[in-house]
């Protein structure tokens, strides 16, 4: 009997805590019994109200067209739940007559939000509106078939899709799979070597795997072989888990310096993957010759023979592939350019300083669109004689170059701030030890600067990733452009303009969000978190 009461009491206490969180202190704060009975009353009333809303909504929407009864049930449940929360909050505030609570932990008292309860009521209405709108988009008013039908096209571009679906061309998708395996493996290894807990890794990784399988495995409107794709993705998942387990075991057993070296090697492999992607997609001549030579010995003959075939030139790339490659180039090459520019701007030699300042200020003065136009039409004029075959200076190569330059200038500014903050004692000690100026720069100043400014550098990377959406303006067929014109060219789903754009927003958001989470974790890991402040540079 006492156990029941204590369970009842503890749960009531938790409910009261929750109520105080959203609506403030109640008049009957001192009398727990009365308080809890009022809470129960409120919960009951709001529960009944939400059930009525559920039934009402469910009956008011007709099954028809693309809307199934399952969709209606999902929508109604979501609406009912949000009404539950909203009505609960309103009832609490009214019934318990919550008084003015000091807002913001007593730091500021702003006259217009005099009461937590008022704020609570306002936010519950906003939440109501948002939930209704989101679920309406998701299940009722929009047809998502156009997105399912164009999955491959949006990932790889129209040329590679044509190669996959039409008989007169050979499918080139085999070039993508080794990269996918590598990326999965590197991700598993990186998490294994870090100190993320196993549980959080499994939760995150599991979520990603589920999403990938759902996305790739939905048989609706698929124009590719689902079973083979799912099989390969499960192989990749298994590979990733194996790498995670192996790295985790390794890092538990060996000294820290070896773990750090392993982390550095993983980082280098990641950079190498970027170059490997480009080589696999469009192998240069000497790679093809080497592959042909090796294949003559009979080792891995069929795989090497594949490499000797004609590559996919950058003009035929498309979709998410372009966004990823251009963003990766901007980040990797941009970091290198940024370091060079930062050191130039900081040096004492005028021959380095003034050109550095000129380049950084000019590039930063214009919006990125402007520089994309410059790279597309004016840069070829200046740079064409440098290429033995001017055709090599492709659209994509130009975009990679200008993204690197643009990213490099922003990163240079960030690193310059970090360089200025390096303790001069470090530099003096290095000088005393006899290190050359170049060694001092690379091995003392740069690591310190990068460590301090890593969150800002990652936010520049996120900015570069988001800016790859601007490629559509110069008629490069990237993810966003395909999504925009999908509704105009896919004759089966003509006129569904909004769905692909929502999908685009979701995909870009997911990548950017993941990067910002990584940056926060890195920040915490490096011990850079200040007293509650967030870095917003």
């Amino acid at each position, binding site marked *: 009997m006492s156990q029941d009461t204590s369970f009842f009491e503890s749960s009531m206490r938790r409910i009261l805590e929750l109520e105080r*969180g*959203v*609506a*403030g202190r109640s008049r009957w704060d001192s009398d727990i019994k009365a308080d809890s009975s009022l809470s129960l009353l409120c919960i009951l009333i709001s529960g009944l109200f939400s059930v009525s809303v559920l039934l009402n909504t469910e009956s008011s929407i007709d099954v028809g067209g693309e809307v199934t009864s399952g969709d209606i049930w999902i929508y109604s449940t979501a609406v009912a739940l949000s009404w539950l929360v909203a009505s609960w*909050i309103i009832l609490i505030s009214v019934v318990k007559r919550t008084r003015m609570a000091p*807002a*913001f*932990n007593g*730091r*500021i008292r*702003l006259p217009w939000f005099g009461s*937590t309860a008022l*704020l*609570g009521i*306002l*936010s*519950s209405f*906003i939440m109501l509106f948002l939930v209704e709108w989101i679920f309406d988009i998701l299940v009722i008013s929009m047809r998502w078939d156009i997105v399912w039908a164009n999955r491959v096209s949006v990932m790889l571009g129209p040329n590679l899709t044509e190669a996959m679906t039409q008989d007169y061309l050979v499918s080139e998708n085999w070039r993508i799979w080794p990269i996918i395996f590598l990326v999965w493996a590197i991700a598993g290894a990186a998490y294994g070597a870090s100190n993320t807990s196993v549980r959080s890794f499994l939760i995150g990784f599991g979520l990603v795997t589920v999403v990938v399988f759902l996305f790739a495995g939905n048989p609706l409107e698929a124009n590719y072989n689902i079973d083979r794709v799912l099989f390969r993705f499960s192989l990749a998942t298994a590979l990733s888990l194996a790498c995670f387990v192996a790295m985790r075991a390794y890092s538990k057993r060996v000294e820290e310096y070896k773990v750090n070296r392993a982390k550095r090697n993983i980082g280098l492999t990641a950079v190498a993957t970027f170059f490997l992607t480009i080589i696999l997609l469009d192998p240069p001549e000497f790679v093809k010759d080497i592959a042909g030579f090796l294949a003559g010995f009979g080792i891995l003959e069929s795989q090497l023979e594949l490499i000797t075939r004609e590559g996919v030139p950058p003009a035929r790339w498309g979709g998410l592939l372009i966004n990823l490659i251009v963003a990766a180039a901007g980040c990797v090459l941009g970091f290198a350019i940024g370091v060079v520019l930062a050191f130039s701007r900081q040096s*004492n*030699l*005028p*021959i380095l300083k*003034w050109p550095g300042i000129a380049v950084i200020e000019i590039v930063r*003065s*214009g*919006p990125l*669109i*402007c520089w994309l*136009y*410059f790279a597309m039409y*004016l840069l070829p*004029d*200046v740079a064409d*004689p*440098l290429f033995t075959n001017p055709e090599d200076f492709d659209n994509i190569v130009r975009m990679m170059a200008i993204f690197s330059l643009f990213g490099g200038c922003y990163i240079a500014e960030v690193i310059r701030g970090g360089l200025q903050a390096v303790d001069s004692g470090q530099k003096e000690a290095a000088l005393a030890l006899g290190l050359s*100026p170049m060694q001092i720069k690379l091995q003392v100043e740069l690591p310190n600067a990068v460590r301090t400014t890593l969150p800002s550098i990652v936010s520049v990377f996120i900015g570069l990733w*988001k*800016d790859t*959406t*601007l490629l559509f*303006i110069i008629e490069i067929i990237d993810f*966003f452009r395909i999504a*925009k014109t999908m509704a105009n060219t896919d004759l089966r789903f003509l006129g569904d*303009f*909004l769905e692909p*754009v*929502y999908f685009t*927003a979701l995909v*870009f*958001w997911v990548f*950017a*969000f993941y990067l*910002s989470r990584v940056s926060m974790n890195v920040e915490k890991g490096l011990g850079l978190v*200040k*007293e*509650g*402040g*967030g870095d*917003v*540079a």
Partner: protein
Amino acid sequence: MNIKSLQNRANIFSSVKVLLAVVVLWAYNNKMLSPSIEAVSSMSRSFVVGGVQQNPAYYDPYSLSSAIIFFFLIFMTLARNEIAPAIRSKNFNINSISLTLSSLIISILVIALSIFGDFSPAKGMPFLLIGAPIILASLLVLDDSEILPVKRLSGLHPLVDWAEGNPGIINTVIIFSAFLGMAFNISFVPPIISSDLSSFFSFILIIMALYVYYQISSEAGNPLTHDQRSSTMVLIIGLPLIIYISTRILFLLHNPDSVTRERWDLSWSFMDMKNTFEINAWPLQPDFPEDTRWQFLFSAILNSARATLLSIVLCTILGVIIGVTRLSSNKLASGLATVYVEVFRNMPLAVLLFLVMLQLGETLPLFSEEANIAGWIYYSNQGLHLPRPETLRIIIALAIVFSLWAWGRYRDRDGIDDSSEALARKSLIWSMALVACLGILLTGDMSLPNYVKTNPNIPGTWTIEEGSSFEVTKAFMALIIGLTLFTASVVAEIVRGSIQALPRGQVEAAVSLGLSPYQRLRLVILPQALRSMIPLLNSQYMNVWKNSSLAIIVAYSDIFYVIFVMMNNVGKLIPLFLLLLVIYQAGSLLISGIMNFYNARVTRVKI
């Protein structure tokens, strides 16, 4: 020269890294120099048939040589860095700028020679004009080296002693005369050199680079010498790039291909011609087809400016509200604010703008449905129609607000009175004034949108009467909404970070001193929070200005849109591109200046 030093030298050069660097440098030099040599050849070939110059790429020797050599001289001066210290130092010694002077003299000599000496376009001119920068660079290299033969002859003659004391001048004279000798007799120079000039020059540059590398790595020297040698090294490595850029741009300006020439034509006279497309601008609507391009551009600048200003104001307000809400104790409210910030911070702006525009088009009702709010505001997916007050009354309302503010400043000239009675009185006066202004605006000759059904059978002809309303286009709404939502999330983070960074002790001390909430805000919290906020807000506002160039996605006539269409109508890319850069830079500087001024005011008090 003993064995030990030879061994030292060999050790330095035997490392693989140096070998690799030499190979890369060779390839890079050749790649940059061969197109430059071809470009110089084509630019100096003149052939006049019937009194008309047939080679469009031709430059007269004076312009060609002076352009290339003076462009290089700029970098030479930077590398040598003699002028700035000489100006700064107290005793001015002609020797301290001797190198700069000598390079100037050599340049003028070379230019004069190029005009008066008849150099052949195929070999002579490139040799002269590309060899001259190499000679100038070699002056830097040889500046602190010795001439060995002269040393042996010391004591023979006072002239020789003087020469030994000034090795730089002797080096200069010898090198330059040898160079001139080769230039004048270029056809007699052995074919190894004259047939492949770029390899010859690359070879010379590599030797110079190796020599400077040896100098740098063998003796540490004092920092000044070390800096000089590093500068020289940078100049030698950068020389092919500098030559390439200058010759390439000169070639582009006089390109045989007429379209490229159009593109690089640096004249803005086409902007005085009539514009060929129409735009929709307020407050200065240009008159198509009469107005010139400059006027269209100016209207577009006003368009961009008003979009940017409105976005900045709105995003600051929204950002402050959300940032403060995020710190609230109400879990639901702070949760919603966190969701907002996380969603919009990671959303690409281009996709957001497009999404907003499409969603507005779908969600807002059709114009023929006559959707309105009490007959005052008509909204549809073709735009928003607001009532238009009389201009005079707007001016009166603004004047009232301004005079009230000035009077308040005057009353508080001896110190702000922030007792609760004064605050109550102030808020009363301000609210009365706002009500009065509203009343003034809404009475009198305010015109409401007049929905006219021109032809009752044809819904498309129904319209709002011209001039009866203030129209806000859908494109403007989409741009403002997108920019505001996006930037507000970043501003919210900035505000939250600044407020959270305040030490707790400050607020507790303010409370214990008995300050009222308003006083706490004004005297303790805001000054400290603003100090960290303003620089960050400065960069965000500049981002808003630059992001307004994305208005092309929503077809709003801003600067970039107008220049983009002009670029496609007239092939003059470089002039328009330069205009674009200048305008955006000017805007950024303006915003930066205002924010810096405000920053200076806020940080006047030392904390």
